[in-house]
């Protein structure tokens, strides 16, 4: 017990804290309301994508393909802002892989360039090409894929052979079907799939246009049903909302766990820093569409707007309410200011990546070996995320949540376990 005095100090501080005017339950309500708005916006923008995909398949043309791409890009704006709901909410974690799994071995789905290679040590199915093969064998079982349905994608192909890179569903599978592989290496430019990959009769390029269309429609339909399900979980009476609000402190810990885990381990680490350190354009989060700068930007924005309790919907309206920021401010105003400043600094860094990319300095170029400007831009974002995570840890401590946060779903499922 040599350091027990630390706990007793914490306890004295806890006793000395005055009754708070900001109600924890109201903070949780705001968080849940924003979740409902974000997933609702993700759904409506995905429905717009669905209409565009159906139009492309019915009447293939360059314009129709471009309209579908535009709709996909718009749909990513609200969805990326929901990623902050991962890691703290088990219901989101259990579901998320279906809609946003990444990275993927796209050769599972469709034709790829010869440079892609064949089956790898890690993944025997890396070049399966379901669109070209109506029947095939998977882990010794004969699969009938003559009709490509949402059920086939979800139940048979997704994570086939237990390999996470076998991504058959979600935004990135759709992205690949709209853009195709980005074969520009570190150069500018996204994938250049021709609209004729969906054309009928003799105009059809790269074969199997009907099956490709069938796959695209099935994957989009599945995305819609998955988003409908998640939106319902956050509506009044939904199970994600109920779980969040069943224990106020565990709910607050869930918010902070999501903010910290997304910032540090996921975006700063897995998605941004690793790409720079590997100099690998395949490490782009949206490598087919070249939309990675926006993925990072809206992830960061999601963390910030959860803390501030303010979200601008896709129709421009504001959803807001009592926030974590209000709660921290009452406990430790200086810490609240520190947290807000760190979040703003991260957004400034992510904004620099976004504006540079939009002005023509592609994210692939930033990743190239020896590109110091690119490395410095990306590391600015990484350092912002890492730095804000330290303040998130301080917020956890200031709110006396440190024995229930950090351990993810294990302890959130059973907050008392850690005190036993």
């Amino acid at each position, binding site marked *: *017990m*040599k*350091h*027990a*005095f*630390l*706990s*007793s*100090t*914490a*306890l004295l501080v806890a006793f000395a804290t005055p009754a708070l005017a900001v109600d924890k339950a109201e903070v949780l309500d705001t968080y849940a309301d924003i979740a409902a708005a974000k997933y609702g916006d993700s759904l409506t923008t995905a429905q717009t994508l669905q209409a565009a995909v159906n139009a492309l398949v019915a009447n293939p043309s360059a314009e129709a393909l471009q309209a579908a791409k535009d709709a996909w890009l718009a749909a990513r704006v609200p969805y990326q802002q929901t990623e902050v709901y991962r*890691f703290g909410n088990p219901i989101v974690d259990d579901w998320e*892989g279906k809609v946003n799994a990444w*990275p993927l071995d796209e050769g599972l789905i469709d034709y790829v360039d010869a440079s892609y290679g064949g089956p*790898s*040590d*890690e993944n025997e199915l890396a070049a399966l090409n379901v669109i070209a093969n109506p029947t095939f064998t998977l882990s010794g079982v004969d699969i009938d894929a003559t009709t490509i349905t949402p059920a086939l994608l979800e139940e048979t192909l997704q994570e086939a*052979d*237990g390999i996470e*890179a076998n991504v058959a569903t979600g935004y990135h599978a759709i992205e690949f079907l709209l853009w195709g592989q980005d074969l520009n290496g570190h150069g500018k430019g996204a994938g250049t799939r021709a609209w004729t990959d969906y054309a009928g009769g003799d105009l059809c390029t790269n074969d199997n246009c009907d099956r490709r269309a069938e796959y695209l429609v099935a994957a989009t339909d599945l995305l819609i049903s998955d988003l409908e399900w998640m939106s319902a979980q956050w509506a009044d009476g939904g199970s994600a909302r109920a779980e969040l609000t069943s224990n106020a402190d565990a709910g607050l810990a869930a918010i902070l766990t999501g903010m*910290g*885990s*997304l*910032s*540090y*381990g*996921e*975006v700063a*680490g*897995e*998605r941004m*820093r690793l790409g720079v*350190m*590997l*100099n*690998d354009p*395949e490490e782009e989060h949206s490598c087919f569409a070249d939309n990675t700068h926006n993925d990072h930007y809206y992830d960061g924005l999601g963390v910030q707007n959860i803390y501030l309790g303010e979200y601008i919907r896709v129709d421009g309206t504001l959803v807001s309410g009592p926030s974590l920021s209000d709660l921290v401010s009452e406990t430790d105003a200086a810490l609240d200011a520190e947290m807000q400043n760190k979040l703003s600094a991260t957004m400034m860094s992510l904004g620099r990546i976004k504006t540079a990319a939009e002005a023509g300095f592609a994210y692939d170029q930033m990743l190239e*070996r*020896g590109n110091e400007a690119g490395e410095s831009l990306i590391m600015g974002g990484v350092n912002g995320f890492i730095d804000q*995570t330290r303040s*998130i*840890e301080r917020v*956890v401590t200031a709110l006396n949540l*440190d*024995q229930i*946060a*950090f*351990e*993810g779903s294990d302890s959130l499922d059973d907050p008392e*376990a*850690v*005190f*036993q």
Partner: protein
Amino acid sequence: MKHLSLSFAIMVAPMMCLAETPNALITDIVDGHILPRFVALSDSTQALSDAAQADCDPTSDTLRAAYGTAFDAWVSASHLRFGPTETDDRAFALAFWPDSRGATPRALSALLSKQDPIATSAQDYAEVSIAARGFYALEFLLYDEVLMAAGNPGYHCQLTQTISADIASTSQGILDDWQTTYAFIMQNPSPDGVYRSDTEVLQEMFKSLSTGLQFTSETRLGRPLGTFDRPRPTRAEVRRSGRSSAHVILSLQSLQDLASRLVDDALSAKLSDQFERPLSRLFDLEDPTFASVSEPQTRIKIEIIQQSVEAIRTLVRDELGPTLGVAAGFNSLDGD
């Protein structure tokens, strides 16, 4: 229950603080645990670089022995992922693993086939992808059947020497930072500093312990285990050099040393007992690469080893953390 244990803490706290302040504890860990490990890493990687200069043949006994000694030193320090190891991505440059997309063999093949001139200088080589740097890349050059013989022999030799020199230089950089600034930073927290209080320093140390245990359990053991229906023996860490089981042993021994410095007397015996379980089983296992994960009878032994490491994690989280007044915080394994 929570209130009972906390009031007990208040009663005993005043007596115990006199016995040892956190600052003495921090000094003990910096001087007794951290610095010796980075001195050993710096010395042994310099010896590795010298050995590669003297004889770059992948089958050279002296080179392979020097490689093994230096890699042992890294594994024993590999849980200390903060400060000087984070600067300039040094820990990543020494140790890029797991490599689920095969980036290391791909990057090395590209260098070898192009005879990329960047390998002529260890200084320039610091720009290269981390997949082609560090101990795990060197393992492919020394032990992989294809890559140990790939490319022009002269270039292969130079690449081996450059990667070894780069490892030594990175390790020296870590030690320099520890000796010149970071040891002081950890022992002198300040409101404007990296650490604002002793508690934040202790949290960093506690985080190293808990993250190290997590990595050994989930990655070093979990990757080859896969699932019962789909074991993955080829995913075992450094199986080509037959070091997989040794890495688990080395990491547990090092984590045990750190844990023993953090615990109080009440927990000490319990923790020591908990570490003994996986260690003694690993010594008995005699399966250096965990190849037997595919055989039900031996697979269960490795599963039990993993469960006993999980038991240490639970003890550390639920009993050591509250005693120290800290929690693990966020770590790089939080993503998916």
